[in-house]
């Protein structure tokens, strides 16, 4: 009986999620052009990755993006949550405004807007021009293009901020009162009480944001017109996977790339969980 009611979910799970995942695992060991039946290659696709220089570029770009944007985004989210938590009038409005970019950040429209803002004739350069600095096109220069995408990701700090805010609300005020009696200042309270009690929340946000950032696709696809340019400076891992799969009819290799990304993300998450034992405090 229960199985019958589970069936819609279960069928969807098997047909739409698990089936394709297993199929892609199989395809990752084949040469598959989409137009012809797959041919078994064994481990060749995985071996090929060692010599694939563009893949190495893609890894470099993606790791830079994750390692720079996630800490910046979380720090900003925590800082704003901390200030909002100290009783700002109209908190609900601020919370909504700051949260908005998280909803929009991954969208095509925002990516197009970003291109305009950071373009040669864009808003940023007009502002710089007003103070006498002549800027170049930010999204179209290989040294800056990735930075603009990092800024875009940091800008979507609203989602972790809301979670931080909820976490801050849960810290009992008696701890702070006790600390004040002992003569603790603002920084000590933040460092000795807020941060330790917030570590489960920080950990949660960290894991989610790392997983999400590794999978970034839309922004880079739109900003570079699908090329990962200029000069491969925004060639995200997922974008490269897409190019191999659909651009050059190498769906087998693309499947192998997807599986390697899964393994990379799994390793990062596992390391996170292992390290968490040393710094995350779940109270008692």
């Amino acid at each position, binding site marked *: *009986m229960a199985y*019958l*009611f589970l*069936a819609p979910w279960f069928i969807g799970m098997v047909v739409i999620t698990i089936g394709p995942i297993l199929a892609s695992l199989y395809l990752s060991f084949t040469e598959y*052009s*989409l*137009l*012809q039946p797959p041919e078994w290659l064994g481990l060749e696709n995985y071996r090929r990755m060692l010599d694939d220089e563009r893949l190495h570029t893609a890894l470099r770009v993606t790791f830079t993006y994750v390692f720079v944007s996630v800490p910046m985004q979380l720090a900003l989210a925590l800082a704003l949550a901390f200030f909002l938590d100290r009783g700002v009038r109209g908190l609900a409005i601020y919370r909504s405004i700051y949260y908005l970019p998280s909803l929009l950040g991954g969208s095509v429209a925002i990516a197009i807007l970003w291109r305009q803002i950071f*373009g*040669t004739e864009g808003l940023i350069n007009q502002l710089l021009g007003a103070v006498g600095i002549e800027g*170049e*096109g930010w*999204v*179209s*220069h*290989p040294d800056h293009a990735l930075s603009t995408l990092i800024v875009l990701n940091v800008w979507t700090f609203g989602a972790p901020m809301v979670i931080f805010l909820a976490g801050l609300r849960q810290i009992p005020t008696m701890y702070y009162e006790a600390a004040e009696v002992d003569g603790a200042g603002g920084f000590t309270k933040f460092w000795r009480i807020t941060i330790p009690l917030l570590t489960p929340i920080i950990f949660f946000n960290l894991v989610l944001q790392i997983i999400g950032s590794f999978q970034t696709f839309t922004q880079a696809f739109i900003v*570079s*017109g*699908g*090329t990962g*340019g*200029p*000069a*491969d400076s925004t060639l995200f891992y997922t974008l490269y996977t897409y*190019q191999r799969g*659909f*651009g*050059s*009819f*190498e*769906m087998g290799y693309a499947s192998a790339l997807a599986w390697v990304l899964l393994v990379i993300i799994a390793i990062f998450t596992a390391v996170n969980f292992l390290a968490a034992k040393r710094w995350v405090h779940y109270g008692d």
Partner: protein
Amino acid sequence: MRTLRALAVSLPAAALVLTACGGDDTAGGGDGDVVELRYAFWGSDDRAQMTQDMIDKFEAENPDIRVEIDYADFGAYFDKLATSVAANDAPDIMTMGGAYHSEYAGRGALLDLGEVDDMIRTDKISDDILAHGTIDDSLYAIPTGVNGYAMVANPAVFAQAGLELPDDTTWTWDDFADLCTQIGTALGDDGYGSQDLTNHNTLSLWARQNGESLYNEDGELGISAESLTQWWEFALELRDSGCTPPATLTEELASQSAPEQTLIGTNSGGMSLVWSNVLEALSTASGEELELLIPPGLGGGEPGSWLGPSMYYTISARTEHPEEAARLVDFMLNEPAAAESFLTDRGLPVNTDVRDAIMDDLTPVQQAEAEYLNRLQEVVGEPVAPAPVGSTETADIVTRLNSEILFDRTTPQDAADQFITEVGAALQQ
């Protein structure tokens, strides 16, 4: 008991789902002998409307065939097409472009049109044009229209710089560089002599002028590292002399395809290398009377330009109705009525009779385009070999290496070697 009741509730629901899935197959079965075809192409709603207009005429003449159009924006079209072919759900008639017809034919996804050659008349189409769709000696794709690679020039910008348009029957790359630099200097911050010229078509042109070819008849790379190096050294000279924009602007222009945003479209550039069929869009965007010039040569060398196909009609290898599909392709290629629906939207018609029939319906800009192609016809050399399997990637490889060069991250020599390695590898697969 409870199980039974649950079954009673869920079965109709399941039946509903199943019938909904089956809907497509049963729809056409009712009216006897009517064959349903699916015709896929990319483009705007305007193109879809013209196509529907053409389909209406076709269906009126062929009551036994119904055609369903299936279109998408260019960016999504080939992803969608590859997926539906993989799912064994390929459209019966597919429009192809670039080297995609080779990619598909080389992998067995297209019907050898020799099997339906009694349905498709090709006697009014030049052999040079048909050669583009001939892969391994079989005709798989028929060009929809003719295009010519051209240097578009904006006379208003030339006048602004106090210059006259060159004589395009004799001009050389040195003349081009001179003119271009003068325009760039005269316009100052307001514009440039030309948009950056490098792309795979330009490399093909350059190769031909140097007695080589981008790809040879065997589907291998034909251009030498020396020619590539020379081209990119020239491109750097143009950048440094103020002829072409700085690298960041070139990059920005390269990552978008809207005619309104090109230097020609915004009247901030004197020249650009384009396919002749974008003349109309560029003219609308700039509002000026643009001119198409035959691209410059090496001086005494071969002009190098060629008549190229704009798109191709192909038929799926797995279509259940090859004959009916062939009748539609024949209609689109050879019936003046069809051409009247879309005029030059798919390039200037390849059938010379059809071309003459619609000439009076064309706008002045379209007529200028046709005149250019007539002039170009006189000077084209050997036809270009069809683009080989794996060559779809070339365009992106060129764009990427060109960025590296223009941003001074690599040298023309190294980029040339890289080009040969990367394109060579893509062609091998």
